[in-house]
């Protein structure tokens, strides 16, 4: 089962939920935790384990200007506006290229070849016997986050013996988030009970609803007065399955970069209960 942990905006405690859920589950079975927040991955900061590294590469066209006749066919074909052919030059806008390979196939002068360019890295580590952590990192200045996320998901699938993958989604509802929730079984939406957070979490909820992905809400830093989220929950028919209270002790543990479930048996049990509930909702066998 693949569970994505998403939030409307950053800083709502999405990582807290991902890390604690994975940690608690790993006490009883094998789990893969995948950090898909590739522009700001932070789950690895909670663990201390040796990492292996793999590059993420995408193919890009390369143009041989000795052969190019400046016919312009490639530019007229390119759906993404990555090519412009002028009277004496060809301009390739690498950031706009979607690596479709079309220009290479159609070039009548055989002037286009393919090269591979690194856009990020995948780190894999084994923080405990049952827990595998996969972290995607997008190189600074690169924009192809979805390509790195795809590789994170592929790496997660290759880990054998695990039935559960928890994917930490990038905040918001941009294409990175949409890529993360693509073909998952369940989504946890992490919300804070402020009117500000409400709008963003609603957008995230709409993304998963549109895709018929069953979902629940976890409220972080709940002060016990969560009306705004409760209204949303009812409106969108998404149950609130857990509330993490706003307590000094919890804040301190988190602030030190430590895992709540590692300190408190109570939270271990709560996160396991959350998972069991999710499994029921996702229609899986408990």
């Amino acid at each position, binding site marked *: 089962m693949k569970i994505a942990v998403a939030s409307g905006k950053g800083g709502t405690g999405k990582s807290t939920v991902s890390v604690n859920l994975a940690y608690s589950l790993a006490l009883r079975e094998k789990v893969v935790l995948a950090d898909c927040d590739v522009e700001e991955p932070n789950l690895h900061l909670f663990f201390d384990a040796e990492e292996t590294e793999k590059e993420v590469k995408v193919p890009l066209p390369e143009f041989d200007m000795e052969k190019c006749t400046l016919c312009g066919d490639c530019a007229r074909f390119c759906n993404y*506006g990555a090519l412009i052919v002028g009277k004496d030059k060809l301009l390739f806008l690498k950031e706009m290229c979607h690596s479709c390979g079309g220009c290479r196939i159609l070039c009548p002068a055989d002037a286009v070849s393919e090269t591979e360019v690194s856009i990020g890295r995948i780190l894999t580590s084994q923080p405990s016997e049952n827990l595998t952590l996969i972290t995607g990192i997008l190189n600074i200045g690169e924009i192809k986050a979805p390509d790195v996320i795809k590789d994170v998901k592929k790496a997660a699938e290759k880990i054998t013996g695990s039935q559960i993958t928890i994917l930490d989604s990038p905040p918001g509802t941009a294409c990175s988030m949409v890529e993360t929730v693509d073909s998952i079984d369940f989504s946890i939406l992490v919300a804070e009970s402020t009117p500000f957070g409400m709008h963003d979490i609603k957008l995230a909820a709409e993304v998963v609803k549109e895709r018929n992905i069953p979902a629940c809400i976890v409220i972080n830093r709940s002060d016990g007065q969560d009306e705004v989220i409760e209204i949303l929950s009812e409106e969108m028919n998404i149950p609130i399955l857990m509330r993490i209270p706003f307590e000094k002790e919890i804040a301190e543990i988190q602030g030190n970069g430590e895992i709540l479930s590692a300190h408190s048996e109570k939270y271990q049990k709560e996160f396991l209960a959350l998972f069991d509930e999710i499994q029921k909702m996702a229609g899986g066998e408990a």
Partner: protein
Amino acid sequence: MKVAVTSKGENKDSVFEGRFGRTPYFLIFDTESDECKAVKNPYSQEASGVGPRAAQLLVDNSVNKVITGNVGGNAASALQMAGIEVVLDRNGGSAEEVYNKNKA
């Protein structure tokens, strides 16, 4: 010389369009004869890459200069590379008025 003006419609008295890549039409004027032909911009409704693709359209029509309201970064590099001069007009009016004001 050929001068393109971004335009909401296909006639000289159509309203000037402020956006480059998303313009519905380019009116291409010949400065010698002041004759004008309309070229529909097939990319105006597309999701991405509209600026550079519209720039390619101007290259293919041998345009030397374009008058518009605003050009995005990628389109600007494309136009520059293609040697097409860009004139920004923020006042508007009809396409022909804008052409007459800026053609020189």
